[in-house]
């Protein structure tokens, strides 16, 4: 690092000469999240239009503003589309402000992989900026950059500067479900601790700050009001840190947290640059999409507004009332165009139609008597007469029939056709993309899209319904306050335990970043066990892997059980979906991997079978979210008993345990197991006293 730094210094000294330190930037075009499904099934996320301009344009514009010269663009899913787009764009033209724009393809499944890949490629020569491909900002970065360089000059352990935007407590652009908390030493602008608070899980709504931090720092700011737009200025050291810690996946949750935690070890410091003016935000989910669109239309992002016409060929003009209109728009005489609206070229709007707070792409056809409020209608969509669209997204070439009602939060993906008179209820996601599992033409679901419509309801791959409550509010288009308060304790704790496992496209990367540290272990371990089960690895190997993971994470037995349960249940479910019977599957899995379960239980000899009860409760919790959970629970209970993994006392205690019956779902799931427990109780009775006692059985039932 030394010589490099000197080079930088001497260059700066004679900056009057032509030599300038080139500023490099890494754009993570894919953030490895599934927030934008179903749109991202067919298009890379950074090509989704934001106020009719693809997201990536804003990011590249920001980098151009910052004077960046070398850009490395990492594509993820659909990177061929992205590459095609970039190659045809002005950024490839000789007039591009970037001297070099390198498109890197990688098979990475997380930000961590990308960073490690980058480190391996040795492309980075000096300080560089890392942004995700969905950043919208008009911030001139030089202030932060100057500070970063000055800091690095004096202390080469200052490896990273995060640019954070100050925003009040409540802000539409902020994520509502998870709020990052930065603990900052304001005297040095140093971030000393980082944590994320998940508003949906009551157990994590507290911070764990090392007392040492509090005693060693004179001043500490605890800030929850910052918009983290993931603009980081890094030194090349950051890359090697990523490489060193091969298990880091997420830039904040893991990398930042980890590096700060290991300060004693590495001595690396991470700093913050908090800005009070200028705009900076990330389109991290659909809610942010909505918020940032509004910001762009209300010109908070000036000069990145529609009438700047970032794309060649655009010719938006600003009219009164934040109405942006391109040339060649056909408006019927009696239509009403309200405030905050963007209308693209070739769009026609029929008689008596009302449009407000809406973005209309190019060549849309809006019929008569249509009401559009807060809608995002992308290029070439057709809305039939008399239809109402409220706070919903209608993607490219989608057709909505006559007299439909599209309720808030609905997402209608590319090319979907909705028949006449259909009511698309709140929060539906309808797509036409081929399903992930079968290659054939997707079947249409007439109950969703109406007779003659095309498309089916997309259910996120997390078959736990992506826990309707939590994710709808966090990734839904609407600020669903009702849902916010609805997230009762039991549901949200349960879901936060399971949500992330295996759900995202990456298969190993947490989508919501909502869990705290211990959940990482559960998540990783579950993924690892699940993969092993799927590949029919022998139980020894699985066990070995599990143990090593447990050691690294210093995880508790409870966590191990959680991981195991979640992996087993997932696998069982999958096999059952493949057409096998529950009993058969369960016998097969538990028979083969019996040892793993056994090794997670340590109370064989004690009187209270707390571990075994815990296991049963975990299984029960897991099955709440799965289809035919009650059946699976029955068979599992039976199998575990027959394999002598669990003892009768455990079942008894489990049945009496209040955790197993504290909510409606839990009771429902275990209803079928009733017969088994009864049988057990009876058998026990028979064994011990050799006599039937109907009274006992009855009282058992009363207990429920």
């Amino acid at each position, binding site marked *: 690092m030394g010589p490099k730094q000197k080079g930088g210094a001497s260059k700066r000294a004679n900056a009057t000469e032509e030599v300038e330190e080139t500023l490099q930037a890494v754009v993570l075009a894919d953030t490895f999240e599934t927030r934008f499904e179903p749109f991202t099934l067919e298009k890379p996320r950074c090509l989704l239009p934001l106020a009719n301009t693809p997201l990536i344009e804003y990011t590249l514009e920001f980098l151009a503003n910052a004077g960046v010269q070398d850009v490395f663009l990492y594509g993820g899913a659909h990177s061929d589309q992205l590459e095609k787009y970039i190659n045809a764009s002005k950024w490839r033209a000789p007039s591009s402000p970037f001297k070099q724009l390198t498109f890197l393809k990688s098979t990475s499944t997380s930000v961590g992989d990308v960073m490690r890949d980058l480190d391996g490629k040795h492309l980075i020569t000096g300080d560089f900026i890392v942004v995700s491909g969905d950043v919208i900002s008009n911030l001139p970065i030089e202030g932060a950059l100057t500070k970063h360089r000055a800091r690095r000059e004096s202390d080469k352990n200052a490896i990273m500067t995060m640019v954070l935007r100050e925003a009040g407590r409540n802000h539409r652009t902020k994520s509502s479900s998870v709020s990052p908390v930065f603990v900052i030493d304001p005297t040095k602008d140093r971030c000393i601790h980082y944590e994320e608070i998940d508003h949906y899980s009551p157990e994590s709504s507290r911070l764990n700050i090392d007392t040492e931090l509090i005693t060693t720092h004179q001043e500490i700011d605890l800030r929850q009001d910052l918009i983290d737009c993931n603009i980081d200025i890094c030194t090349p050291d950051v890359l090697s840190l990523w490489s060193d810690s091969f298990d880091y996946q997420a830039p904040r949750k893991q990398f930042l947290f980890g590096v700060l935690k290991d300060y004693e070890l590495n001595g690396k410091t991470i700093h913050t640059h908090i800005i009070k003016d200028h705009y900076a935000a990330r389109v991290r989910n659909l809610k942010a999409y909505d918020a940032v669109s509004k910001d762009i239309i209300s010109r908070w992002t000036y*000069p990145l507004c529609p009438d700047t016409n970032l794309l060649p060929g655009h010719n938006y003009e600003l009219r009164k009332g934040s109405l942006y209109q391109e040339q060649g728009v056909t408006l019927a005489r009696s239509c009403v165009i309200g405030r905050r609206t963007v209308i693209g070229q070739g769009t026609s709007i029929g008689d008596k139609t009302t449009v407000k707070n809406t973005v209309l792409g190019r060549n849309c056809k809006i019929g008569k008597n249509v009401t559009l409020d807060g809608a995002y209608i992308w290029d070439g969509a057709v809305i039939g007469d008399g239809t109402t669209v409220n706070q919903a997204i209608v993607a490219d070439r989608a057709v909505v029939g006559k007299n439909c009602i599209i309720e808030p939060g609905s997402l209608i993906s590319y090319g979907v056709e909705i028949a006449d008179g259909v009511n698309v209820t709140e929060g539906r996601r309808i797509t036409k993309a081929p399903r992930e599992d079968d290659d054939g033409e997707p079947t249409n679901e007439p109950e969703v899209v109406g007779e003659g419509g095309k498309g089916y309801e997309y259910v996120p791959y997390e078959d736990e319904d992506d826990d309707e409550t939590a994710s709808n509010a966090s990734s839904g288009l609407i600020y669903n306050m009702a849902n916010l308060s609805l997230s009762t304790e039991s549901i949200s704790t349960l879901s936060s335990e399971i949500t992330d496992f295996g759900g995202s496209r990456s298969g190993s990367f947490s989508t919501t970043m909502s869990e705290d540290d211990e959940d990482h272990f559960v998540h990783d371990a579950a993924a690892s066990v699940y993969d092993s089960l799927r590949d029919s690895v022998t139980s020894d190997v699985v066990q070995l892997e599990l143990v090593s993971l447990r050691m690294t994470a210093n995880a508790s037995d409870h966590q191990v059980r959680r991981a195991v349960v979640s992996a087993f249940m997932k696998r069982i479910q999958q096999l059952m979906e493949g057409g096998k019977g529950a009993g058969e599957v369960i016998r097969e899995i538990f028979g083969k991997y019996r040892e793993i379960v056994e090794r997670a239980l340590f109370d064989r000899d004690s009187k209270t079978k707390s571990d075994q009860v815990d296991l049963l409760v975990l299984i029960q919790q897991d099955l709440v979210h799965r289809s035919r959970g009650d059946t699976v629970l029955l068979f599992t209970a039976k199998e575990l008993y027959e394999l002598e993994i669990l003892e009768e006392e455990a079942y008894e205690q489990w049945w009496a345990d209040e955790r197993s019956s504290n909510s409606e779902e839990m009771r429902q799931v275990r209803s079928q197991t009733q017969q088994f427990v009864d049988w057990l109780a009876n058998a026990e009775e028979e064994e011990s006293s050799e006599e039937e006692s109907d009274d006992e059985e009855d009282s058992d039932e009363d207990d429920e």
Partner: protein
Amino acid sequence: MPSSSVALTPGLASFLKSLKTNPIDTSIDDLISLLKRRQIRHSRSCATATAYLLRSVISACRTSDANKLIERVQYVGRRVMAAQPREMVVGNIVRRVLGLIRDEAEDDREADFTLSDAGSESQPQTPRILDDISESLSARHDGSDRSSRQPFTSLSAPPISMFSLLSHPEPESSLPGTPASASPSGRLPSQIHNKDIRAEVLDGINEIIDELGQVDDQIAAYALDHIHSNEIILTHTSSTTVQKFLLKAAAKRKFTVIHAESYPNNHEATHATVSGQTPDDDELLSTEAFQKPLIALGITVILIPDSAVFALMSRVNKVILGTHSVLANGGLVAAAGTRVIARAAKVHQTPVVVVSGVYKLSPVYPFDFDSLIEYGDASKVIGYEDGDLVDQIDVQNPLYDYVPAESIDLYITNLGGHAPSYLYRIVSDHYRKEDINV
């Protein structure tokens, strides 16, 4: 450290630097994106960038056919103007360059004609009787143009064109008025005219660039005529033109300046101007940034919020305003808040003087005022961090005001002082009719 950061951000300086090395099409796109991103935003910077760009365009153009040159400049001009239609100076410069080419072409043809016609000066009009009016305009234009190139004879220039107005029916009389310099220079290269039209145009553009550099000093030369001892002058926002104007007067006379800060878009620059700190604005690349503030010359400067303008107006002797651009009808587009000041001045019968280089004078007639006004960053009015408010209200932050001609009493340009109603004359002197719609 600061030097490196300046070099980083693209702007006028980086554009001019890259212009020498980059191929011309790259430079065009470069300027377009700089304009779009508002990295070049002051009138003068825009004008300078456009002039330099067109100079490169013409020198890169391997033709000496005037029509082709015009086509080329029109093409480039349209693209650059479309990038930022509200920066009218860009269009002004394009039109002036087009006018230059047309003039040179006509000079050439004249010269051809005179050659074949044994050098009679009075003859050349006959073959082109059709566009007789524009012809005489162009001739006059040539005159005033020359005068603007030679600033210290400029005082005498407008009378010539006034004179030629009266003598309109006899175009010959206007020709001898101007041509002392024009026609010889036009004729000399005529033998090799095919080669030299480009050189002539390039010279012309260089003169425009020079004009852009000198315009403030030229305007400041009139300062002593307008600012008298012990007057109270009110001005608004930070403008180098106004500042130089006042400085010039301050060298000789003592007066008081009341400076309205033009919150929220330009108050920082205004404060810097008043207190004499060098503004961070790297766009004003010249040494002007280092000029002394008025207070250093012993002038009392009172910085006031915009809201206090009306209250103080009764004590003000003269309002001196800078502007963003001036329109053909005598109205102007200037920093937001200017219109309020102009209205307040009207109520108090205080004279309003606008100082502006001729390059800001646009031949565009404002039919739709609203379309001229640019709306800026809303967060300057209300902090973006105020989430609840941001969600519920619409914030508009106009950067400019349209001030109607009736509110203005006098324009001072580098050609001298003019009444607003006279501006159309200057317009027709500087721009050719054919070019008004590029």
